[in-house]
């Protein structure tokens, strides 16, 4: 697969393609020290959390499917920075990062991965099915593309209630070829629903490269026939994501209807835990890791601007590791759900 021009640009340049004058997407927001420290901590939490999840999977504590978000952290962290109370988030099966970014408890997420009673779904949902009414996170969906119609429904509900909240519907380059995505685009544009469609293009739908599955590989243009504006964003740079998110969310909030953000990103790990990832070269992965890592970019910036010392960063690392270790301890020691839970939560 030919390298994508946009994803391989350096972090300093814009990767977004402003297709309309009123959209500055990709003009990188100048992050303050606090912004960068917050982004660093949140992305690191996802990274360490996912590494630990991978380890627990390897030890047999986590079963079934487990899709790690490592490499894509800047996308959810950047998007989340643009939201306000009451805005909703929904995504597919690669969802641990989204939940942590929404502020859901690491213990709750990890214990759900191990199928324990303290998990966010009492152990009954697993990796792909977690929800939080409190944090406005609507799943966690295992059927590829289903979350796009559901997320459009969240936006519909905001419009129905007459509030100015926005929903974020995340899906991948693979899901972008599902029929219901376009059914949803049509309704969202027709009814001017406040939904941001975020296509996390990590270049592979399981093992199939974008160019082998998609006739139009510029996913930002997938809404063109419905008049939905779309922009490509460097999804490896949290500042670019945040800048695009601010504009997209404002676009929706002000009643202009849906918008598409294609996040050019990359997953370092296989599709799921059992994927040996033979469909891409090690060099490709290594190049992304060494040149575009979302966390390393922030780390380098913090050090360069002397916003943090090595020791400060070590301290953050330690705090994050402690949170993750605590969640892992909890997830291993918490009991499995009581047998009586088998028949609860089926009907109200």
């Amino acid at each position, binding site marked *: 697969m030919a390298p994508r021009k946009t994803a391989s640009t350096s972090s300093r340049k814009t990767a977004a393609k402003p297709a309309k004058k009123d959209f500055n997407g990709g003009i990188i927001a100048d992050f303050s020290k606090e912004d960068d420290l917050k982004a660093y901590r949140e992305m690191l939490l996802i990274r360490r959390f996912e*590494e630990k999840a*991978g*380890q*627990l999977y*390897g*030890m*047999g*504590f986590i*079963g079934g499917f487990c899709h790690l978000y490592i490499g894509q952290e800047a996308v959810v962290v950047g998007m989340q920075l643009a939201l306000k109370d009451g805005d*909703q988030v*929904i995504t597919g099966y690669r969802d641990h990062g989204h939940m942590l970014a929404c502020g859901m408890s690491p213990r709750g997420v990890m214990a759900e991965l*191990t199928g324990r009673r303290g*998990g966010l*779904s*009492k*152990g*009954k*949902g697993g990796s792909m*099915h977690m*929800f*939080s009414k409190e944090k406005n996170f*609507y799943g*966690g*969906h*295992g*059927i590829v593309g*289903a979350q*796009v*119609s*559901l997320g*459009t*429904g*969240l936006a*519909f*509900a905001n419009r*129905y209630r007459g509030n100015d909240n926005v929903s974020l519907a995340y899906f991948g380059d693979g899901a972008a070829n599902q*029929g*219901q995505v376009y*059914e*949803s685009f*049509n*309704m969202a544009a*027709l009814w001017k629903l406040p939904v941001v469609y975020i296509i996390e293009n990590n270049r592979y739908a399981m093992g199939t490269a974008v160019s082998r599955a998609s006739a139009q590989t510029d996913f930002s243009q997938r809404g063109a026939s419905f008049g939905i504006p779309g922009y490509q964003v460097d999804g490896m740079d949290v500042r670019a994501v945040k800048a695009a998110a601010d504009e997209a969310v404002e676009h929706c909030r002000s009643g202009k209807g849906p918008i598409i953000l294609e996040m050019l990103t990359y997953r*370092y790990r296989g599709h799921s*835990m*059992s994927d*040996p990832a*033979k469909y891409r070269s090690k060099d490709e992965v290594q190049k992304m*890791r060494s040149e575009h890592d979302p966390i390393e970019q922030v780390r380098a910036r913090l050090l360069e601007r002397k916003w943090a010392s090595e020791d400060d960063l070590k301290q953050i690392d330690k705090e994050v590791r402690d949170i993750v270790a605590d969640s*892992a301890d909890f997830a*291993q020691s918490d009991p*499995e759900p009581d*047998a*009586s839970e*088998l*028949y*609860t*939560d089926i*009907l*109200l």
Partner: protein
Amino acid sequence: MPIEILMPALSPTMEEGTLSKWVKNEGDAVKSGDVIAEIETDKATMEVEAVDEGVIGKILIPAGSEGVKVNTPIAVLLQDGESADAMAAPKTAEKPAEAPKVEEAEKPTRQGSAAAPVPAAPKVEAAADPDIPAGTEMVMTTVREALRDAMAEEMRRDESVFVMGEEVAEYQGAYKITQGLLQEFGARRVIDTPITEHGFAGVGVGAAMTGLKPIVEFMTFNFAMQAIDQIINSAAKTLYMSGGQMGAPMVFRGPNGAAARVAAQHSQCYAAWYSQIPGLKVVMPYTAADAKGLLKAAIRDPNPVIFLENEILYGQSFEVPKMDDFVLPIGKARIHKKGNDATIVSFGIGMTYAVKAVAELEKEGIDVELIDLRTIRPMDIPTIVESVRKTGRLVTVEEGYPQSSVGTEIATRVMQQAFDYLDAPILTIAGKDVPMPYAANLEKLALPNVGEVVQAVKTVCYK
């Protein structure tokens, strides 16, 4: 403290594997994410990445070792400033915890076991129908009007109820079930959708997850097959998958089953399909009163309800009590006619055959008890069993396909719960096991008929 690196499980089913290659050697520094070894599973060769940082102190399992069990220590990782001497007492990375007791009972994987006995399914008891006060005026009403009245009353009562579907607003409903709703409630609450069943079903479910109460009309349930993933995987399962945090309080409704001469793709009954799904309620009324009372109940129900109507019944008139708020219990069968010699259970349009058969049988001196099931799920088996205990004979009647039908489900349950009371094998009358033909004569043959029902009752009565 040195950390033991354990043989990882790399797929849901892996129990052992071959440690084919060490990428890092003793003395090499590693950090999180570095590939340290390659392991061959039954499916593929996988890379193992380091989780912790440190220096490989000792390799415990040499490259090329086969049949290495998951969780066997394969190497020791030294942390900052530790020497190889410290390896005498390595600490296991995750101190393979005291996993819960039940877990280890069967096998040493950490994914639990099914050692605990399966708990009993909870018993659901539906309330009885409300009393209709003496002197209540009964108004002849079509099923069509009854359904419309039910929606209008609930929309007046609850601002969070809205109706969406193809042609529901300006066209006034493809079958005129939503007639007048747009005029009364406006375009915000009566929403014409594009022809896009999968998409608008998903939009409805998403709205319901936030607490709104959509009524999603399908022009026919045949088209809902395009939406069945959202109905089952999203609407029905979310409450369970979220540990009770959120569900889909909504109604999916529309005509179901055969109409007349609309051929195979528009003539299928979905009662048995949806009745299999935990997390759904499935209602299929026959009379206008039931249509009204049960639709009102379905709209108020906090769960997703499949409400199966029938085009042929839309125009039929029945008495409906004139009451301010006539709501019927979901999950309760109604005894349409009392009798002693045999029991017929039917529902929806199936009742039209049953009612006529009962009248014919009466002329021949056979006194049939006719039960209108009304709700397919949860199914009111106690009412059926009670009747069978009295009559000893049972015939079921429906238009759907015969295999794995609602009737075969009833037969199974009655066999299990009232075997000793049965005086004859249970007979199930259903549509024929064919796609619906178009030709008038063939269509007639494909559907059940009154004669078949009469004959079945005579057979179980040995007459």
